[in-house]
Each structure stands twice: as C-alpha cells, then as structure tokens.
C-alpha cells in the first residue's frame, strides 16, 4: 500500500472545438498497479490518455511523473516525458516502412542514442518477450493484427517506460486474435508494469486492475475496485454498462474472471 505514486493527474480540463472533452479529471497510479478506464465511446478515455503524454496537451491541470510536475511549455521536458511514458494505440501505428526489428529499434537509436549493436540486442530481447523474435525481419503489412499489437508493445517496452498507457489495445482486433495480446498484457501486469488502460475487456481486466474508473461525458463518475463495482447488487454504472456489453457480445457473463494464470 505504501508503493510510491508514479503518475498523478490533477484537475485536467480539455476543450476541443468548444466542447469540453475532459472536465476536471484527477487520478493517481502507484507503482506496479493497473488502472482501467471504462465507459461509452466519446466519454474522453482516449483524450485523457493523450493528455497524459501531451500528444494532446491539457488546457489546464497538472500531470506529474515520479512526483515532478511536467511543464508542458518546455519542449525538452515534453520529449523527456514521452520517453518515459509508453503508449499503445488501438490501431497499432507501427511504422509501415520499417521491419519489425527496426520498429522496435528506431527510437532506441534516434531518441536514446544507443549504438546499433546495443539497440539490436535490446530490440531482439523485447521481441522475444512478446514471442515474436522469429518475425524480426518481416514488415508490418506481413503481420496479423495481434502480432502488430505485440510488436507495438515491444516497441514501447524497449524505451523502459515508467508507465504504459494502453488505448483500447484489442478493440481493432479480430476476436480470435485478442487472446494473444491480452496474454502479453497479463504478463506485464504480473511483472509489475505500471499501466493505465482504456478497454472494453471488462471481465479480463477485472482480474488485474486495482481500480476501475468509469468515465462519462468527460468526467470520472465512478471509481472503485473491480469487485465492488461489478458486484451483481452493486447498482453501479460500471455493472450495468458491463452487463449491456456482454449482452451485446452474447457471451452472457459479466463477472470476475478466474484469477490470473488459471
């Protein structure tokens, strides 16, 4: 319980085109924990993640990494922040013109200044970690969706991020490919990676998350442990949203998944 806070988001407001997308959002993530953002499309989950690494700078509010507030006006501080905050996108965003190996290696060389040999070794390590060492020479267009997303995880991990932001990492995947990506995420959680994840995979993330944050119209309207929020008689927004999702999916279960590893 006394793990240090890695990431703190305080009173973040973001307006786009006159519309308030984020309205006074605050959260903090302790080392090794997973926070899960849940909520309908347009609730502001993606925008919140993009505000954390200033891909979409917040209008007001503070982002602190390791207790140090980030000065969004300083280009140098921004670049340093982004090196330490990994991001996984819904549609992977692998660099189409680079091989799998180069996708993981490029930032090690161009941003961290590693020499080519060290960068190659590190990149191959990360590819092995996501089970894709044998695909190093292939190009993104030659990979399946699940493989692409695992490469993008390797690319982010190679930078040694203090926290990983995952923006619906399985939403663009065919159902049969979701499992391999979830397995990688579960391994990361087990290894103690600090993460914030927006997802619709509620029952999966319930077994890993230490807190669910339910967002709606730019606000966090509910927060609590998965067990509390998903309890059948909780009457929570999270519970009814989850029930609706599983009804649509037709799998008919919206409850805690079996403990990890099972």
């Amino acid at each position, binding site marked *: 319980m006394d793990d240090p806070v890695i990431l703190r988001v305080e009173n973040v407001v973001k307006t786009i085109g006159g519309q308030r997308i984020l309205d006074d959002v605050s959260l903090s993530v302790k080392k090794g924990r997973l926070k899960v953002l849940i909520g309908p499309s347009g609730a502001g989950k993606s925008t919140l993640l993009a505000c954390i*690494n200033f*891909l979409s700078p917040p209008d007001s509010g503070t982002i602190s990494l390791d207790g140090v507030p980030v000065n969004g006006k300083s*280009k140098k501080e921004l*670049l*340093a922040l*982004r*090196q330490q*905050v*990994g*991001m996984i*996108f819904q*549609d*992977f*965003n*692998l*660099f*189409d*013109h680079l091989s799998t190996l180069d996708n993981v290696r*490029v*930032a090690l060389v*161009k*941003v961290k200044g590693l020499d080519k040999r060290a960068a190659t070794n590190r990149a191959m390590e990360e590819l092995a970690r996501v089970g894709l060492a044998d695909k190093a020479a*292939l*190009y*993104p*267009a*030659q990979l399946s969706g699940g493989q692409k997303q695992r490469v*993008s995880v390797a*690319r*982010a991990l190679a*930078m040694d991020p203090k926290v990983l932001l995952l923006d619906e990492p399985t939403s663009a995947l065919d159902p049969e490919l979701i499992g391999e990506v979830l397995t990688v995420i579960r391994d990361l959680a087990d290894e103690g990676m600090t993460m914030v994840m927006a997802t619709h995979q509620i029952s999966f993330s319930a077994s890993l998350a230490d807190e669910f944050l339910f967002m709606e119209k730019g606000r966090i309207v509910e927060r609590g442990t998965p067990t509390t929020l998903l309890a059948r008689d909780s009457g929570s927004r999270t519970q009814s949203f989850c029930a609706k999702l599983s009804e649509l999916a037709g799998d008919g279960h919206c409850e805690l998944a079996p403990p990890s590893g099972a």
Partner: protein
Amino acid sequence: MEGFLKAAQASWDALPYILGGLWWTAGLIIGAMLVGFLLGVPLAVAHVYGRPLSRKLVAGYVWLFRGVPILVQLYLFYFGIMAYLSEIPALSFLPLSSGFVSAVIVLGLTSAAYQSQIFRGAMNSLPAGQLKAARALGMSDAVAIRTIVLPQALRLAIPAWSNEYSILLKDSALAFTIGVLEVMARTRAVAATTHQPLPLSLLAGGLFFFLTWAGIKALKRLEATVRIPGYAHQGSL
C-alpha cells in the same frame, strides 16, 4: 529534289552535333530536378508542419512560380538579375553569364514549387498515427519527420515525381532562348542552314521522347526497388 538530298546530307552530317546537345539537356534536367528536390522537400515540410507564417510564405512561393511562365522567368533572371549581378566586381568569380546556370536555377526553382506540392500531398496522405506514434516515443518533430514521415512520403511521391520529370524535361527546351546549346538549340541552328526543319524536328522529338522514356523507366525501377514488402498497391484489388 537535288536541294532536298543536299539538305538531308547536311542534316545527316550534323547528327553528331545535335546528339551532343543531349548532354546539355540531360545536365539541365538532372540539375533542375535536383534543385527542385532539395528545395521542394523543406518547402513541403514547412507547408505541412510549419507555423502559419511559414505556411503562408511557402504558399506565396508556389503561387509565384506556378503563375509566371518559364520563358518570362528565364528572361527576367538571365537578362535581369544575372546581368545586374555580373556588373559587381566582387562577384566576378561566379558563372553569372552562363545561360546553363541560369536555366538550371530557374527550372529548379519552378520545379521546387511543383515538387513541394507533390510531397505535401504525399505527407498528407500518410495516416496521422505514424507521426503520433513517433512523438509518443519521444522523437522530436524534426527526427520524426526525417525518419518516419519522409521515407514513407517520398516513396508515395515517386509516380507523381516521374510526371514532373517528364514535364520539366520538355520545359528545358526553352533554355535555347538564353543560349544553352541543348538539343532544341542545335536543331534550330542546323535547320537554319539546311532550310529543311521537318526531319530535324522529327529528330528532336525522337530524342526528347527517348529521354522521357529512359527517365520514367528508371523511376519505375526505383519505385519497385524501394517498395515496402507486403504493402499492397493502393487501389489494387
């Protein structure tokens, strides 16, 4: 009849002279495409990613060079700017009276305007996620544009670029007006002595056709060489 044969003989004798113009034409087109490329890429980057002021400046540049005929530019540059500069003693070491240098610069500046728009279109057609992912890894915009955006955009630009090559090649024939001894200038000179412009015009046309064909063939080969493995041709089903 005798007159025609005489003219044909004279044309035939002049063939090596006319073919010698190929070097000048090739020099013009390679020089101008290179100037246009080296200037067009930064112009395009400034147009797409620059601040509002630099966007306006690029837009102004493009309007200017697209709007003024090349012949007018050649005259203004060669008989105006270059003639003025050549009177300054401190600049006497520069080849200011060379029509070739003037033509390469004018054709290059014009091509830069067109090429910048080709590259701009290619950059805009890339998915926004490419730059976003590069930034998320901590790349500065300069590094991201150099290592992620341009390598992809330049590949996409090759077909339009080969079009620009074929247009500029034929524009280069205007360089004869400021005394560059390229294919067209030599053809006209010979025609003036033989009084039989028709066979010579056919010859000049054939030579330009050959240069167009060879250049486009080479660019097609380049396109295939740098093609990204597994990447489907856009629009092919």
